[in-house]
């Protein structure tokens, strides 16, 4: 650690140097202009209607036992949210499923929770000992 500390030599910015170093990065000092004609409130400004199209997801759940339940998940969100989770323990997956059911009203029968948790744990489970595989009541 001390070796590293000694290897560093501090150069403190002096005004003449500052001009040079900031000269290459002027964007930093530019604030967006609120007075532009594109800004609501500018003279002559007119609101325009906005209409956009949102892309649809091309990501799908992988096949496997329990995958037949996942269309229930897709009612409210695309698959990416699930597939980009960190590997979770089965208990954590059960917790996520039950949060979807109780907090957000996911129409998922209680008797499908275990099967869906098994599926999610299989496709994205945390590599932990089997003691983490706790069954929910």
């Amino acid at each position, binding site marked *: 650690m001390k070796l590293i500390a000694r290897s560093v030599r501090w150069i403190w910015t002096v005004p003449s140097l500052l001009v040079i*170093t900031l000269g290459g990065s002027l964007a930093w000092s530019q604030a967006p202009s609120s007075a*532009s004609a594109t800004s609501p409130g500018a003279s002559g400004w007119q609101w325009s209607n906005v209409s956009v199209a949102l*892309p649809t997801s091309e990501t799908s759940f992988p096949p496997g036992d329990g995958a037949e339940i996942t269309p229930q998940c897709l009612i409210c969100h695309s698959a990416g949210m699930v597939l980009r989770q960190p590997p979770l323990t089965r208990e954590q997956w059960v917790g996520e499923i039950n949060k979807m059911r109780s907090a957000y009203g996911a129409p998922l029968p209680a008797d499908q929770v275990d099967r869906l948790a098994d599926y999610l744990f299989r496709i994205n489970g945390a590599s932990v000992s089997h003691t983490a595989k706790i069954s929910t009541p």
Partner: protein
Amino acid sequence: MHRPTLMPTPMSRRSFLLRASAAGTAGLMGTWGSKAAAATLVELPFANGQREIVTNFPQKGAMLLQRTRPPLLETPFEVFDQGVFTPNDRFYVRWHLANIPTTIDTGAFRLNVRGHVREQLSLTLDDLVREFQPFEIAAVNQCSGNSRGFFKPRVPGGEWANGAMGNALWRGARLKDVLDRAGVNAGALQVRFNGLDTGVIPQTPDFMKSLAIDHARDGEVMIAYAMNGEPLPLLNGFPLRLVVPGWYATYWVKMLNDIEVLNEADDNFWTTKAYLIPDTPYANVDPGQQGVRMIPINRMVPRSFFTNVQDGAVLKVGQTATLRGIAFGGDAAVAKVFFSSDAGDRWKEARLGPDRGKYGFRRWEVMLRPSSPGTQRLMIKAQNTAGSVQPNQANWNGSGFMRNVIESVSVQAV
């Protein structure tokens, strides 16, 4: 002037661009569609961190895709090196509920103010622009769970790296002025905000957030109709968004169309059950710790980042490199930014760039000239004017909220 290269070497960089065809580890279970096979991917530096760079969201440039519906789009971190104001088309996107209007008739749009008020209001966009004194403020909008992907142990949620934040110059009407127009009745406790987005099924609680009446009337909380001098992108809340300077973005309700003054505490799900943090310093608990009092998330804490140097960057011995980045103070201005080139043993103040507003990003800059070869651990930390300093140890909580640990990068001097 000599410009040292700060680009990381391909072999040592932990976060690197790659082509899907060359990745080999085609993700979790090889579920990328045919279109994604040709897409540019980024590997965020945590497990399951592969993200596609997408350009197919309206009014948005290249963004990191976390979820298509409802959209979760992260700002690629290199954007933060380009300036202290985040361009609208690169500003991160976060929606809770998928029923998002994709067409806004600006003539028909109304902002309603109701509840515990003398007179209900139904304001057009032109009313808001013309009849209220315009107010401008630069402020950082940061997701409560920004940087959640770095939590150890990992927690479920939106798995962001550090790009679920942005700074904009917001222009609009003060909420106080609008509330005064309606006339808040005595006994008002909170103000609840609702936007046009709703859940797909009726069982899903509508997304609403509330602020205490005094906070709502502090003269800084505002209703923004412009962002960096332009109308807001639809995905950032067009046409109106609540701006709550210094507070986490969960309160910055998008597509704001309903303001309700309450004379009792808001009991809606999103205020009472979601977005809760442990009532502890840095919202920090031990994994598995029970019985901690939980409170609604609120003020932001200071953070700072390197923006032109990453892990694995190479510096030349004997040559001066200009290192730079951004800092923000949370609910108070940046007071000082400190830099260490020896893994935190010694700290020196960084030079600060122009002050563009106490709630915004501020540039910092240091010059470093390594005098001998080797690895150096560089660190950066911000202190705000209220005395809050970034901690040495990363916080942890089960929701992955409020990360603000000191950031560091390892560089090689050669």
